[in-house]
C-alpha cells in the first residue's frame, strides 16, 4: 500500500467525519443539558436546503450560511415550544419533526423549483471553498491529510474548541450543566430550565446547521432529498458513547469517519455493496454495546471501591 494511498484514505476519512462531527458536537451540548437531541437530522436538512436557495439567490456565501442557520434555529424554536411549553414528549416531537422536515424540504424544493429530487439544475449554489493550510500543507503525510479540506471541515475543528469553551468556561455553560444534572436546583436559584434547554437547543441547532450546509454547500453544491441519510443519528450515537465530552465526541466522529472510509475502500475488494453499506451501522451498534459495557463495568467497580474504602474508614474509627 503506497503512502499516497494511505493519505487519500485518511483524507476521505476526515471529510466523511465532518458532518458527523458537527452532529456529535450538537448532541454534546444537548446532552450536557440532560437531553438527547434526536432532531439533528431535521436541523441539518432544513439548513441544507435553505442555505442552497439563499446562497444561489443572493450569490453571497455568508448570506446563504446565515439563512441556513436561521432556518435551523427556527424549527428548533418550534421544537422547543412543543416540548417545553406545550409539554409534548421531546423524543416524540423530535421524531415527528424529522419526518416533517424530510417532507418539508421536499415540499420547499417542489414549490421553488418544481422538482422533487434535487436542486441541481435550478439553483447554482455557492460552495464553501477548499482551504490550503500554509505551513501544514508542506509537511509530508500530515499535509496531504489535513490540508486542502473544505472550509466547513476546519470550521468543525474550531467548533470543538468553541463548544468546549461554552460548556466549561462560560456562565451559560455552567447553567447548562446545572440544568442537565438537577433542573430543580437550577430552578430554585431562578434559572428557568426551559429557557436553558431552549438556548442549548438553539446553539445545538446552529452547529447542526453547519453540518447540513457542509453537505449541500461544501461536499456538494446542491440539495438532494433526504441527503442527511441518518448521519444525524450516527453523530448522536457518537456523543452518547463519548459521554457528552466535546473532544471525545469529535474523536469518535473521526472513528466513524474512518469506519466509513474503510467501507468505501473495501469496495475495491468486496463487491457486496449492500453488506458494505450496512457496515458503518453494524460498527456503530457494536461500539455502542461494547463501550457501554466497559463504561458500566468501570463505574461499577469504582463504586465498589469507594464503598469498600468507606467501610474501612468506618471500621478504623
Amino acid at each position, binding site marked *: 500500500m503506497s503512502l499516497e494511498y494511505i493519505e487519500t484514505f485518511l483524507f476521505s476519512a476526515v471529510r466523511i467525519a465532518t458532518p458527523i462531527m458537527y452532529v456529535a458536537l450538537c448532541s454534546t451540548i444537548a446532552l450536557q443539558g440532560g437531553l438527547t437531541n434526536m432532531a439533528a437530522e431535521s436541523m441539518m436538512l432544513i439548513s441544507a436546503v435553505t442555505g442552497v436557495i439563499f446562497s444561489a439567490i443572493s450569490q453571497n456565501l455568508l448570506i446563504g450560511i446565515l439563512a441556513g442557520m436561521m432556518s435551523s434555529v427556527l424549527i428548533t424554536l418550534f421544537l422547543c415550544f412543543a416540548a417545553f411549553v406545550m409539554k409534548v414528549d421531546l423524543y416524540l416531537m423530535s421524531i415527528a419533526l424529522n419526518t416533517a422536515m424530510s417532507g418539508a424540504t421536499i415540499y420547499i424544493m417542489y414549490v421553488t423549483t418544481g422538482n422533487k429530487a434535487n436542486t441541481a439544475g435550478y439553483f447554482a449554489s455557492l460552495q464553501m471553498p477548499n482551504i490550503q493550510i500554509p505551513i501544514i500543507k508542506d509537511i509530508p503525510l500530515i499535509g496531504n491529510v489535513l490540508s486542502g479540506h473544505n472550509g466547513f471541515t476546519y470550521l468543525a475543528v474550531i467548533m470543538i474548541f468553541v463548544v468546549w469553551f461554552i460548556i466549561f468556561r*462560560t456562565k451559560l455553560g455552567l447553567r447548562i450543566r446545572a440544568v442537565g444534572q438537577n433542573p430543580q*436546583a437550577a430552578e430554585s436559584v*431562578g434559572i428557568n430550565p426551559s429557557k436553558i434547554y431552549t438556548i442549548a437547543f438553539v446553539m445545538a441547532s446552529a452547529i447542526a446547521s453547519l453540518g447540513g450546509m457542509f453537505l449541500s454547500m461544501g461536499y456538494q453544491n446542491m440539495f438532494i432529498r433526504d441527503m442527511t441519510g441518518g448521519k444525524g443519528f450516527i453523530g448522536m450515537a457518537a456523543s452518547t458513547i463519548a459521554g457528552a465530552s466535546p473532544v471525545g465526541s469529535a474523536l469518535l466522529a473521526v472513528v466513524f469517519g474512518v469506519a466509513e472510509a474503510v467501507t468505501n475502500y473495501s469496495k475495491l475488494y468486496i463487491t457486496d455493496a449492500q453488506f458494505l453499506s450496512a457496515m458503518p451501522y453494524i460498527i456503530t451498534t457494536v461500539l455502542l454495546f461494547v463501550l457501554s459495557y466497559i463504561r458500566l463495568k468501570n463505574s461499577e467497580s469504582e463504586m465498589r471501591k469507594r*464503598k469498600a474504602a468507606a467501610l474501612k474508614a468506618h471500621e478504623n474509627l
Partner: protein
Amino acid sequence: MAKELLKMEGITKIYGNGFMANKNITFTVNEGEIHALIGENGAGKTTLMKILFGLESCQEGKIYLNGQETHIENPLDAIAKGVGMVHQHFMLVPNLSVAENVVLGIEPGPGQIFDKKTAVRMTEEASEKFQLKVDPNALVRDISVGLKQKVELLKALIRGAKVLILDEPTAVLTPQEVRELFVQLKSLKESGYGIIFISHKLDEVMELCDSATILRHGRVTGFVKKEEMNEVVLSRLIVGRDVVSTMEKDESSVGDTVLKVRGVTYVDDIGKKLVDDVSFGVRAGEIVGIAGVEGNGQNEISEIITGLLHMTKGTVSINGTETSGLSISQIRKLGLAHISEDRMTYGCAQEMSIYDNLSSIYLDHPKFTKGIFIDQKALDQYVKDCIKEFEIACDSEKSPIRMLSGGNIQKVIVAREFTSGANIIIANQPTRGIDVGTASLIHKLLQKYTREKGFAVLLISSDLNEVMNLSDRLLIMRDGRIAAQFTDMNKVNDELMGEYMLGIKKMTEEERGDLH
C-alpha cells in the same frame, strides 16, 4: 414596633387536580424575627412557601414586601426582591463544586465568561462573613449533609436575601449541626433578617422562634407569640385535639420471632454508612415501633427488609427463610407486606384505576389468575370486598386513583397489603399526611390484625403519638443504629424519646435488653 418585612394575605391555592392546599392564609414576618410555620405533614406549609418563592402560582391573595404589594412571578423575581429559600430537599447540583453551586445564577465574570476564581473568592468571603465554613472547591456530591445545608444558606444569603425561608432545615441534621445552625440563624436575626422557619419539632420552634403561625388542612388555625408558646397549645392547634390520648391496649399474646434482622449494614453509593450493624426481631402478635428523626436509617431498614434495597452486610429472615438473593416478589411470597412511606412513588400508580392498583401484587397469585389471563370474576369480587371493608370512598373502581384524596389512596394501599395473605407488615409512615379519621381507622386495623390474626407489625413513624400509642415495643434509631428500646410503653414519654432520638442519651446493650 419592628418593621414589617413580609405579609402574605388571603392566599388560596388549588392544585391542578382540584385539591385545595391553601385556603385564605394570612401571616406576617417582621424584621429581626424568626417566624415559625408549623403544621402536620400535608398541611400546606411547603405549598405556601412555594407561592412566596414564585415556584407555584396562587388563585387568590396578595403578597406585600416591605409594605408594598408585589407580584412574584418566578424564583428569579423572588430572589431579586430579597426572598431566599432553603428547600426541604436540597437543591444542589452534585457534580459541580461548592463555589459553582453558590454562585449559580449570579455567576461572576466579564460578559458571558465565567470567572471561577472570583466565584471561589466570593464564596470564601461570604462564608467568612456569615460564619458558614465551607470548602469552595469541594464537589457537592462529596460533602456531608450539614455542609450541604450551609451551602444552601450561603446560596440564599449571597444573593442578598432579607427574607429567608427554611423548609424543615433540621430534619436531616445531627444535634451539633442543629446547634450550629441555630447560632447562625440567631446571628442573622440580630442583623435584621426575617426568617421563616418550618419544622415539625416543637422544641426547636419554642427555642428559636419569636412567633408561630399554625396551619391545618390548608387553613390558618392560630398565631402564637413566643411568650404564649408551649407544647400543649401548639400541638392542639396543629392536630386539633389533645395529644395525650393513649389507646386502649389488650395484653398481647406474643408468638415466635417471625422477622429477624441480624447485623444489617448498608453503605450507600457514595460510601456513606446509613445503617450500621442493626439487629432486632419482631414476634408474631406484636407491634414493634421504630421512631427517630427522619434520615437516621429507618427508611433504609424498611427498604432492605422488603427487598427494594440490597444490604451491604447482614441477614434478614422472614418466617424462617433468609431473604438474601431473593426477588421482591419472592420475599412477598414468604409472607411480607409493605406500606411504603412514599405513597405516590411506591404505593400506587397514579394514572391507573383503583382496580389495577389493588390487583398489582396479585398478578401471579393462583387465586386471581387463570393461566395467562386474569380471573376477572375473582378479582372483581376482591376489589368490591376491599372497597367495602376498608371504606374506600370512590365513585367507581375504574376511575384513576389520583382522583382520590390522600386518605383514600392510603386506604387502597392498606387494603391491598393487609389482605395479601402476609403475616408480617412493614408499615412505614402509614398515616403521614392523611386525615384523622383515616388515620385512626388504619390504627385500629393494625391493632386488630395483630391481636386477632397474630400479625407481626413493624411500625416506622415520625409521628411520636402514633408509635407510642400503638407499639408494644419501641425502638429508637439514631445514626443508623438502635439507640434505645422500650418494652414498657407506660414509662415512655415525648421528652425521653426526644433525648434518645436527638442523641442526647444512648442506651447500653444491657439497658436495651433483648431485641429478639
